[in-house]
């Protein structure tokens, strides 16, 4: 077989492009070369989660397109009264910035994790968790506000009754994901601080050797939560 015909990476001599794709997928044992199993599994889980959130957003699209009643204007529904006037959607905007900031701190935590800088990694992860908790807190405030204003899964004062059910379902499911992420982050940050990944201490649940890759895997989950919010923000709050 002539090697020169295949596009190669100049530094590693590994095939690139379609050749690498076909080779990886037709090879023995594992398709995802150079990817730790935990990371590959997390990606596959996130893919399945993508379909779940897509189903929620699609059902929202379907009820919104098929209802005869006026859809409540999210710009007004989610406005806050600040300084004597209504600022549209301000709470949601702040929540967006909080979540993006948490994604930034998480990305840095992954970087410092691979540098085996325990203190900085754990601090950044705990900061990420704190921002996530802030997000959930603001969401609780938002839910409380809407519920006191009379929004229910079967109706609301402003228009199409489906608004409440889709709102509670979509944001509730996302908030649950954020909450689970916060718990996950705190557990992993504690392990980082304790030095579990430097001595490859076995996990209490999986009995597998602890490695710093788990920080990246946790990060993938956390960035995904931020990613889902990008779509919810665009389709539910802005549309």
């Amino acid at each position, binding site marked *: 077989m002539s090697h020169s015909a295949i596009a190669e990476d100049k530094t590693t001599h590994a095939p690139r492009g379609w050749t690498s*794709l076909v080779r990886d997928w037709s090879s023995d044992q594992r398709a995802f070369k150079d990817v730790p199993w935990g990371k590959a599994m997390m*990606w596959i889980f996130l893919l399945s989660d993508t379909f779940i959130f897509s189903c929620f957003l699609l059902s929202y699209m379907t009820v919104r397109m098929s209802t005869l009643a006026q859809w409540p204007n999210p*710009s007004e529904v989610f406005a806050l009264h600040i300084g004597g006037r209504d600022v549209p959607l301000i709470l949601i905007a702040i929540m967006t910035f909080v979540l993006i900031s948490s994604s930034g701190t998480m990305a840095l935590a992954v970087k410092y994790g691979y540098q085996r800088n325990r203190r900085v990694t754990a601090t950044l992860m705990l900061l990420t968790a704190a921002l996530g908790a802030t997000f959930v807190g603001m969401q609780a405030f938002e839910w409380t506000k809407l519920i006191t204003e009379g929004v229910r899964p079967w109706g609301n004062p402003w228009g199409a009754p489906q608004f409440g059910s889709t709102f509670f379902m979509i944001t509730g499911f996302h908030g649950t994901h954020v909450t689970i992420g916060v718990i996950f982050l705190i557990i992993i940050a504690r392990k980082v601080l304790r030095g579990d990944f430097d001595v490859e201490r076995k996990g209490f649940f999986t009995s597998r050797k602890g490695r710093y890759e788990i920080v990246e895997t946790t990060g993938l989950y956390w960035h995904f939560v931020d990613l889902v919010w990008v779509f919810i923000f665009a389709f539910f709050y*802005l549309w």
Partner: protein
Amino acid sequence: MAHVEVQHAQGQQAHGQQAHSQQHPIGIYLWIWGLLFVLSTCSYFVDYFHLQGMLRYSLILLFMILKAGLIVAVFMHMAWERLALIYAILVPPVLILVFVALMTLESDYTFLTREEFFGIGR
């Protein structure tokens, strides 16, 4: 022969361990972080300045896609992964667009039916 294979496997493993630890300069994360802030501000302004019609929808979609792309490519390191993983994860969600098309047809039909039966006198 067996000896060579073992050596080869070890070599691959060592190479693997180096390749999958994602090490990138801090600047790129800070840049993307900043860009995400700017894009979020832009999408908030779409609502704040009450843009309407196709301009509103296209801007919402544009900022959404840019933000999602930056998060997946840089924060989730997809840009540095092997094609085998990239295609396995990023191609299946494209099928959701088929679902979107199906449900658009379905909800248009529901809307017309509802208008026909409940919309009398509107």
